[in-house]
Every structure is written in structure tokens, then in C-alpha cells.
């Protein structure tokens, strides 16, 4: 089942393509950072709630449902193989042989893993459902010959501050042992954050060369056409007397190869057509100075979404910093030990 762009004008549709890409990246990072099943479940629920506002719930569910079994298997692995030395033992999965112990920690983390995977997958789905592929391709394409200094500085500043906070939340002890006095230590970390932020934004801002970006864009536009063509070709072959689904396996392979040739030719022809068409419309006029009609522009909501993501990231890192990253586990263990 292909995840195709669903036309619409809902909340997610109106967000900038870059925001949705970052939303996906952010959810992935959060899924790594957050280990608690209830927190992760809440994140998932929030994302799902936003999603159903923008995409048909049935469509979303039908696509997610298929994955439940797969992710449950992942969770099961987690439950089975995640056994600390001092974890709280519950029972053996295969009783009389005393094989495969199941622990409280294992169960809780298994549940968390289930939500972690689902959140990432849901973020991908929502991104693809609500963003025209063309715009996604555009986000990763280099669209200007040179970027403005002000936008580079702003990106470096914001990213640098985020990195600075993250460094303090995750690597507090390492920073403590640096052989400098306190203000210099902080300054040093700040400097390192800005240097890496500058590097990252430079690399991220570079993007694909416009030729490749355009190739990607045009490729997306061809997918629908090719699947239509495959259907036409299959029909044409049926009409020529091929049993398209013979019972004999060898015949079936022969039929398949017979289908491949016209599809191959059709694809080749299509690529020829495209090159002739785009050349005739000035594709190689001066590709670096090309205008892009579609304009990517952050609106208020984009900042809200991105800000929320950053806050969530800081929050969950702070919980981990305070050793409170697993509240559910701790509460249950406390209850059990009492």
C-alpha cells in the first residue's frame, strides 16, 4: 500500500514542508530519548490526534493496523531478551524448563518500544500524507546560489543554543571534569556548540544540487503515470492471449518477463520524452539562477510546532538528567516492593 499525498487544506497540510520534515526528525529523536511507555504513549496519542484532524482516520488506521503485529513482535523481543541482573522477576515464558524469564522492566520497556516505533512511523505517514512530494523534494534541494548571511547566523544561533542545552543535560559529568574554571568551561561548551551548529547548518543548507532535486521532483510526477501504463500493458497482453496468471510456475515467470519488456520500453521512452520536454522548456537555460514558484515560508504555526518539539526534547532530557526518565517503572517497582 503506497502512502500517497492526500490533497487537503487541514492543519498539517498548511504547515511548511520543512516543519513536517523536522517533525519527523524530532519524533525520531524523542523516540530515542524517551524511555517511559506512558510518556511515549502520550506523545503518540497527541501526534495521532493532530493526524486525524488532517488525514482521513480510516486511511491512517488501515495503514497502521498492518504494522501492529510487526511492532508487537519487536516488543516481544524486548520483553524476552531485555533482562537485567537485578530486574524484578515475574515468571518464565516456558514454565517447567525455566526458559526465558519475563521481568517487570522487560514488560515496561517492551511496551515503550511499541509506542516508540509507532510514533516514528506515524510521523512518516503524516509527513507523506500531507506534503506534496514535490515540496518534499524541494526542501532538500539547493534553491539559492548563496544563502543570506542573516539567515545563516540565525540558524547557527538557534541550533547552537539547542546544542548547548542538550550538552549540559546529557553530558553534565563530562563537562564537570574539564580542567578549566567554571565560566571558561561554559564558554568553551558554548563555543563548541556554535561551531558544530555552524557546521551542521552549512551541511544541511547545502542540499542537493538543483539538477538532482528537479530529477526527484519529476520522478515523483511520473510514478502515477507508470502505474497506469503497467495496467494498460497487462491488459494488452491479456488481449493477446496470455494467461496472465497461469498455474504453472515456469509459465508464470515467462509471462512476467514478457510483461517486463514493454514496461521497460515504456519507462525508457518516458525518460526520453521527459528529457526532450524539459530541454525544450529551457531546463538548461541557467539552472543555478532558476526561480522556484513554490515558496517555502514559515508561518506562526510552524514556529509553534518547532518550539514545542524543542521544549519536549529539553523536557525529556531534563527528566533523564534528574534520573526521572522512567517514572512508570519506578512507580510500579515501588508498589511491588512495598
Amino acid at each position: 500500500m503506497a502512502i500517497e499525498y492526500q490533497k487537503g487544506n487541514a492543519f498539517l497540510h498548511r504547515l511548511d514542508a520543512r516543519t513536517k520534515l523536522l517533525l519527523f526528525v524530532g519524533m525520531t529523536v524523542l523516540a530515542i530519548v524517551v524511555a517511559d511507555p506512558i510518556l511515549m504513549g502520550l506523545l503518540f496519542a497527541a501526534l495521532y490526534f493532530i493526524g486525524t484532524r488532517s488525514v482521513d482516520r480510516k486511511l491512517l488506521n488501515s495503514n497502521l493496523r498492518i504494522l501492529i503485529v510487526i511492532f508487537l513482535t519487536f516488543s516481544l523481543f524486548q520483553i524476552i531478551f531485555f533482562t537485567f541482573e537485578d530486574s524484578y522477576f515475574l515468571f518464565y515464558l516456558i514454565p517447567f524448563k525455566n526458559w526465558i524469564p519475563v521481568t517487570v522492566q522487560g514488560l515496561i520497556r517492551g511496551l515503550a518500544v511499541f509506542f516508540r516505533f509507532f510514533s516514528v512511523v506515524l510521523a512518516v505517514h503524516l509527513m507523506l500524507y500531507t506534503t506534496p512530494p514535490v515540496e518534499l523534494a524541494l526542501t532538500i534541494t539547493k534553491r539559492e546560489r548563496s544563502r543570506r548571511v542573516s539567515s545563516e547566523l540565525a540558524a547557527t544561533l538557534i541550533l547552537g543554543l539547542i546544542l548547548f542545552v542538550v550538552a549540559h543535560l546529557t553530558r553534565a559529568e563530562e563537562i564537570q571534569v574539564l580542567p578549566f574554571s567554571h565560566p571558561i568551561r561554559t564558554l568553551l561548551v558554548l563555543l563548541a556548540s556554535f561551531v558544530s551548529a555552524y557546521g551542521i547548518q552549512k551541511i544541511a543548507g547545502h542540499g542537493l544540487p538543483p539538477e538532482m532535486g528537479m530529477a526527484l521532483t519529476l520522478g515523483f510526477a511520473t510514478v502515477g503515470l507508470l502505474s497506469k501504463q503497467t495496467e494498460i500493458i497487462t491488459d494488452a497482453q491479456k488481449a493477446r492471449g496470455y494467461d496472465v496468471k497461469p498455474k504453472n510456475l515456469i509459465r508464470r515467470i515467462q509471462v512476467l518477463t514478457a510483461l517486463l519488456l514493454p514496461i521497460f520500453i515504456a519507462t525508457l521512452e518516458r525518460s526520453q520524452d521527459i528529457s526532450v520536454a524539459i530541454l525544450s522548456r529551457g531546463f538548461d537555460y541557467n539552472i543555478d539562477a532558476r526561480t522556484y514558484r513554490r515558496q517555502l515560508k514559515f508561518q506562526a504555526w510552524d514556529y509553534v510546532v518547532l518550539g514545542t518539539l524543542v521544549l519536549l526534547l529539553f523536557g525529556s532530557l531534563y527528566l533523564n538528567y534528574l534520573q526521572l526518565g522512567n517514572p512508570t517503572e519506578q512507580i510500579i517497582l515501588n508498589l511491588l516492593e512495598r
Partner: protein
Amino acid sequence: MEYDIKFEDVSFRYTGAEKDVLRGINIKVSPGEIVLVTGPAGSGKTTFCSCINGLIPHYHEGELTGQVIVRSYDTRRARIGGLASLVGMVFQDPESQLVTSSVIDEVAFGPENLGVPRAEIYQRVTEALSATRLLGYEDREPHNLSGGEQQACAIAATYSMHPEIYVMDEPLANLDPAGRLQVLQVLIDVAKQRQKTLIIVEHSLEEVLPLVDRVLVINEGQIIRDGTVEEVLAAGDIPRIFTRPAIVRLADKFGLDLKTFSADKFYTDLNARKPLGMLDHADEPSPASANSSRPIIEFQNVHYTYKGQVAALKGVNLTIHEGELVAILGRNGSGKTTLARHIIGLLQPALGRVIVAGRDVAVTPTHELTQEIGFCFQNPNHQIVAFKVRDEMTFGLKAHNIDPAEFDQRVHRALDLVDMLDVIDAEIFDLGKGQKQRLALASVLTLNPKILVIDEPTTGQDPQMTKEIFDVIKHLNDLGTTVLMITHRVDYAAAYAHRAVVMKRGEVAFDGPVWELISNPEIMRANALELPDITKLALQLNKHGVPPWTIKYEQLEHYLQQLVG
């Protein structure tokens, strides 16, 4: 004198080809001129166009001699992209030149490439869409548009680049009558409004001649005629290469102005010269067919609906008898193809029954039905499965487990029928489009089908090839094959078929002899069927006793001679 386009002794040969496609072309086109380029398929018209926008020599590889100058640029030294800002090119196949996923992206694509500022792009897009009557189509997907809309979109995409020169390579060829009308209207607007140079390649002279200033006739890579419309028409026909429209030929014959392109003008002028008399004897219409024979295809109250769409067939009742040659006509989307697909079970009726050669298609697999039914699709590329002509021909035979001893005889017979025995050892990639179409037909004929179903056999073919294909179909019918052909060509249908079936919104709107159809202007108009010029004139002459179903040139000429006396 300044020229927009100048060819100086230009010859071109594609890499690996044995012959030059263009040979010693010398022409000059002035700014604002509208030039029609015509000639048989494979005569080098497309190559000529590709020279103007620099695809030759920069994209298509080969050997170019001589000089092509566009404005002040030598195409050999210019980039295609640079020339694209001067020369707007529109190709024959509308679908193949649309590359993006929405109409607005498509129209904006050219100006984007040229680096036009964003605000101006929007302005140009609106302007181009309104000129091509596509406003409101911005967010539609190009490949879901009708052929006419697609071609209009392709023209809009060129228009928005503001070229000085338009080159249109058979822009009407792949369209149905309604689409042709739409695109032709756009063409006229573009040509007249803008005072730009327009080079248009076309076969359908009737529609384009009234618009142009100058005509070039190309054959085998050479310009064999070049002059004003009047000069070229006065020089007469060239067999198999250049046939003037029927009305022009009649005008020539009866000494009227050569630029008589419409039946109205012909009649008024002829009558003004000397009032016409009455015809005392006219031929009877030819009978529909000797259809006393057995029914071979029966549609019994057939309904069909595509998923999530309006009903495509709504209670079709139709009986085709053995040995008939039936033309199926109607607008795009009227259900013609859906009807044909039921015959070999590619679709199965939701309600009702389809019986073909005594078998119910609902319970017979398609590959069994195809033993008796040959089915040809519109685009031959979709059914070709091999690299060599011979392999292609034997493929169906193998699929049906025919005795290999018979292969040679069957292949030879089928290729002979379509007059392609000489290419039996050729590679399919080397064949032209017309040849591929005939090959597709021949590969179906190897199985000696009792019934032949053909979907638009003449899309994009020149008049000579169209006639040849219809001749083959007629010949097969004479040999006893029942033929069902979907076509837009009313003139050919009328000249070849016995019976016409007109589909309208999933229902049979007309079923009867072809002569009855063409003498019924209401049904013709209601189904966007264009009357052949001869018949239009015959209708005008009806009050003088000329039967309105007259379709053959010779026949009308004969009547006219009597009337003029």
C-alpha cells in the same frame, strides 16, 4: 531583410542511419509568418522542427551539415536552454510532454527555468491559462486531463515562456474531434493575437490551411514545394505525398477561388456564378449489410461502472452479426472502449450478459476468448513484447500452443496482409509508428481470428497510412472476418463500414447504416461527430436533389457536373 529562421543548405543524418533525413534544406522564414509544413510520415518534418529548437544537434546525435540560424544565433553554438527562450516547441503526443504533477506547475516550469521573478511567473501563468481556456484547472493533474486539455496545457506551458517563435509538431494528431476543435481554437488565438512566427506541422489540411500564410511540402527530407497557400494549392496534388482537401479540389475543378475551404463558400460561389439546376437521378444508399447471418457478439442489457465513478455502460443491447464491419463512434468517455473491453473479458458486466461466439465472457478466461478474437490497442507500444519482428509474430502462436510447423506459413500470411513482409527480419526499434501499428495488427492476425476488435487504428498516422490500414481492415472483412472498429474518423467509417453504432454516455444513441447516420445532422452534432466536407457540401446541395449521405469524392463530383450542366 531580417529573418526569424534561416536554413542554409542543411542536411542531417542520425547516428547509425543509412540515409540523410534532411537533404539540402534552404528556407527563410520572416518574423510573424505562419507556415504550414506537411508531407508523408517519415519525410523529416519532426527532424526539421528539432533543428529549429536545437534538439538537433545538441540532443539527438547525428551529423549536421549546413547552418541553422534562429534570430541571430547559430543553433550549433547556442544551448538548447538559450534557444528555448526564443523557440517554443509543442509536440504531437500531449501526454509525453507534460512532466510535472499539476497544471500550474507545468505552466510555471518554463518561466521558472528562465529565472523569471516569482510575481511575474504568476502573472504569466494566469495569462497563459486564460489564453488556452484552462483557468480553473490549476490544481488538476496533467495525466488525468482529456487529450485536448492536455495539449492545451502543453501550449500554455510554452506560451508562458513568451517565445518569439512557436513550433508545433502535429499538435492535433492524437486528439478526438472535440479536442481538435479546442486546440485549433487556441492555435488561432495564439497565432493571431501575438504576431509571432508560427511553424505548424500537420496532416489535416482542411483545418489548418485557412489559418496559414505559407505552405512547405517536405518529402524524403527535401522541400519539394514552398510558397503562399494559393501558389501551393494551384500547383495541384502530388500522389501519395500531398492531397489537397476535397473542397479545394472541387473548387479547382469547377474554376472557383482556390482558397475555398468551406462547403458554404463553395456553394455560395458556385451558385452565384450560375444558378444550379436540379439533379434528376441520384444513387440509392448502399444497404447496411447482408446481415441475415448468425449473431456472433451479443450484448444483453449490459451495465458497467468503474470503481468510484459514474456508470460507463447503462443497459447496452447490441447484436453484431457474422461478417459485419461495424464502426463504433462517439465522444471520448462515451463508453466505446469500455464496450470493446467486454468482448474479450478484460471487463465483466456488473449486470447483463455478453455472449461472444456462443460463449459467455463472464465465465470464459480472456486467453481462451482470444483464440477467436483479435484485439488491437490504440498504442502499439503497449502490446509489443519482443525485440525482433519475427519473435513478436510468433509470440501469440506460442502462447496458444500452435504447432511450430505452421509458424512460418502463418507469419508470412499475416505480414503479407499488412504489406510488411520486407521487414520480417528487422528490429522492432527500427520501425516507424505506422509500421508498429500494422505489426501489432499482423501479430493478432497470425491466430486467424474470427472477430477483430480495433481501438483507434489510425491515431497519429498520415492520410496515406490511414487509408492503407482501412484497406487492410476492409480486405480482412471481405475474407469473412467480423470487424468492430472504434474510430473518430467519420469519413473513413462512412467509406468502409456497413454499420455505425454511436455511443453516448454509456448508451447506444444510434445503431444503423452509416448513410443514415451522416444524413442526420442532429445526432452527428449531439455526439461531437464532425461531418466530412464532402457530406457537408452534399447537405448544402440537397435542395438540388443531391442525396445528403454522399460521402465519396467521385460521386459528388459526378453530381456537380450534372448540376452545373
